[in-house]
């Protein structure tokens, strides 16, 4: 029989389906019967849904970012070969 403390410590593994089946069944039973642990489970589940929903579109690289990276690498190449770096525009 799992205690509330054990359930709370294992909530992420439970949400990630990263535990053995017999423990999953015990977790299910406990969460179904314990309103405090159910609130913990529901709010953690919703938190993950919220930030995944909000953050699922990463920003694209800003305009000119690729060109600046290429320039920095060109300067490094020139330095490593002992030449003068190209002038920054």
């Amino acid at each position, binding site marked *: 029989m799992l205690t509330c403390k054990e359930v*709370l410590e294992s909530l*992420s593994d439970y949400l990630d389906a990263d535990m053995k089946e017999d423990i999953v069944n015990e977790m299910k039973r406990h969460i179904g019967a314990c309103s405090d642990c159910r609130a913990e489970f529901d709010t953690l589940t919703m938190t993950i849904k919220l930030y995944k929903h909000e953050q699922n579109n990463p920003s694209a690289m800003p305009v000119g*970012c690729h060109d600046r990276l290429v320039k920095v690498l060109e300067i490094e190449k020139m330095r490593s070969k002992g030449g003068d770096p190209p002038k920054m525009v």
Partner: protein
Amino acid sequence: MTDEELVRRSKEDDERAFGELVSRYESKVYSLALRMIRNPEDAEDVLQDTFLRAYRGIKSFQGASTFSTWIYRITANSALMRLRKKQLPTVSIEDSDERETPVNIADWTPGPVEQLLSRELQHEMDEAIEALPPEFRQVFVLRDMEEMSNAEVAEILDLSVAAVKSRLHRARLKVRNRLAGYFSDSAKPKRRAMGAH
């Protein structure tokens, strides 16, 4: 051409091969940096730093991990160094072991995600993620934003899988507790207004 082949050619000073690796990974590296550091200028600095380190280190890259793991490891380390510099005085993760669970967790979960997501809540979530200790944020971003596996994150950050799982759980709880505080505060005026009738 595979990453392995491009790495092999880059080791032989094939500039175009390294350029192809840059093209393949620059967006992913930038995205990871931005999610970790949450500032576009700093994310671009991390991007440049990452590929400079990769360029300088490609000849000593042994191929024990994949190129992608290697480049993400450089990115994560570069972002971590910047976060630590910005968050002085630093709070070590051992010191930040505050109670993870608020005394009362009210259920604020009914309804679809879209209904809850206000601009104010998005701001609260951004602040909650920014407030995570850097070592927690690394794990949180790689696992829950970039959706990598525990094993991949452990390899990138040179941690045990158990440490990854522990940091992820604690990071999630910290974000949840912040949102719980937000929902609790935002519910108060409504309760008062309802009580007045």
